Every structure is written in C-alpha cells, then in structure tokens.
C-alpha cells in the first residue's frame, strides 16, 4: 500500500506546499521587512494572515477527524508530537530572537527564495546549520537515553 500510493501522495503534498508558498508571497510575508514591520507594530497585517490561516484550519482540524476515519489518500489523521517544558520554551525564545533579528521563518525563507530573493539562501543555510547543531547537541542526550 505504501508503494502504490506514493505518486498521489507526492502530488497532493506538492500542491499543498505550492498553495502555502503562493499564500506566503501574496501576503508579503516572504519579505522580511513586512514581518519586521508587524513585529514593531507598524503594520499589523501578519495578524490577519495568521488569523485567516488558523481560522480555516480550526474548522478542518476539528471537524475532519469527526467526519472521516482516514484522510483521502488513506493515511491516519496525525497529531503533532509535542510536550511543553523548559527546553521547548527556551527553543521558542531562541526562535523569537532570530525571528526578531531577520524577520524570516522557515516557510517564508523557502517561498521567498522561489520568488527570486536569493539572499534568503543565507537564511536557509543558517536554519539548516542551526537544525544540524540542535541534532548534534540533542543527539548526545538521545544516545545516552537509548542505551539505558
């Protein structure tokens, strides 16, 4: 089943990312200056962007699992794995610090690159390196936890 449904799965995933990226560009969120304008309260547009995106998905995430057993292509409706603790809050603060410095987050970095802002390759390299450092750092605890 896994192999037979790969193509429709990839097409649906690609289309989802495409709509997402188009929306990020449309809402000007791919431009770091727009995000920084929101963060310093000179244009509250980002609130509308987030509000509209959350509003749509509040309906979808709350209703869909009650209406259907499985997603259209047969997968289960997955929950995000997350536990709030001191570490994740520290992560949120570091993320906020970086977001406040450059006005870029992972989605807009990708979509903005697609729209032609090649400077964002620097941000993407930074994000990739940061995720790598996190894995190496967390991996030490992970290994210890696994062998016990």
């Amino acid at each position, binding site marked *: 089943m896994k192999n037979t449904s790969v193509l429709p799965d990839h097409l649906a995933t690609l*289309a989802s990312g495409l709509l997402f990226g188009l929306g990020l560009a449309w809402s000007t969120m791919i*431009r770091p200056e727009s995000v920084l304008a929101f963060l310093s309260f000179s244009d509250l547009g980002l609130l509308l962007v987030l509000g509209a995106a959350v509003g749509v998905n509040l309906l979808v995430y709350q209703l869909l699992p009650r209406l259907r057993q499985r997603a259209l292509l047969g997968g289960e409706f*997955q929950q995000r794995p997350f536990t709030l603790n001191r570490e994740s*809050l520290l992560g949120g603060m570091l*993320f906020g610090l970086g977001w406040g410095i450059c006005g870029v987050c992972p989605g807009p970095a990708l979509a903005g690159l*697609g729209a032609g802002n090649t400077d964002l390759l620097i941000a993407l390299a930074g994000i990739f390196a940061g995720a790598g450092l996190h894995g190496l750092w967390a991996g030490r605890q992970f290994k210890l936890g696994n062998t016990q």
Partner: protein
Amino acid sequence: MIDQFFPNGLERYLTGGLLIGAGVALLYLTTGRPGGVSTFFSAAWSWLLKNPFFQQASLRDGRQWRLVYSLGLIFGGALYAMLGLPLEASTLPAWKLAVGGLLIGFGARLGGGCTSGHGICGMASLSAGSLAMVATFLGTAMVTAMLISRLAG
C-alpha cells in the same frame, strides 16, 4: 483607525492567509499530516549524517514528503513571481539573515516547531502547549525587533 494599523490595506493579508490556510488544510485532508515546515531542516540531515538522532524513525520516515512539501513552497513563491504580481525588493543585511537563520533553525527544533507547526497546525488543534509556544516566540520577537529598530534609530 484601520489606516493607522494597516497602512497597506487588509486584502492582500486576508487573501494570502486564506491561501496559506488552504495549503495546510489540503495536506491534512489528503494525507492526514500536520504541515509544519521546520522539521524538514532536521530530517534532511538524515541523508548526510549517520548519527542516531538524525536516523530516528520520526525524522527518516518523513524526510521524503517533507522534501516534496518544501519544493512545493519554493514553487509557490516562483509561481507568484511568474504571475507578475507585486513584489518589493528586500535589502536586509547578510549578517542578520545568517545570525537570525541560525537562531531560528536551532530554536525551532528545540522548541518542537515554528510559525507553521505551532502557529497554524498546533493552534488549529487547540493545543495549549502550542499556544504557549506562539506567545513565547511572538513576544520575544516583538521585543527583539523593537529594540533593534530603536537602536538603529
């Protein structure tokens, strides 16, 4: 009043937000996956490093769809540019992108998600933890951005 807080109007933000929401909703409807973006940047390392953290099933198993999803995001931006829709240039200094990017990458992974994972999917699932995370990173980002714009005068 509206002009003061929304000098560029409301329409592009609402339309863009609905498109973003439609993309995340389509992914959930078709595949059942919450469409967070930042995990891709950890999962991609599983192609390069054999370290057990990057080889854990939750990263390895999702790396392929996350790559496709990330390509979709890039194509979405490219489609916007190809349609000739309004696009303003960005002139942010490289050091801000580099330092900011590094902090975002590390922080998003330590914090279990970014603006899409916690901000859209987590809030849409009514997760209290995600709401706390959004308040944390939004608050920190606002203080940071305001301090920097003050200092820059």
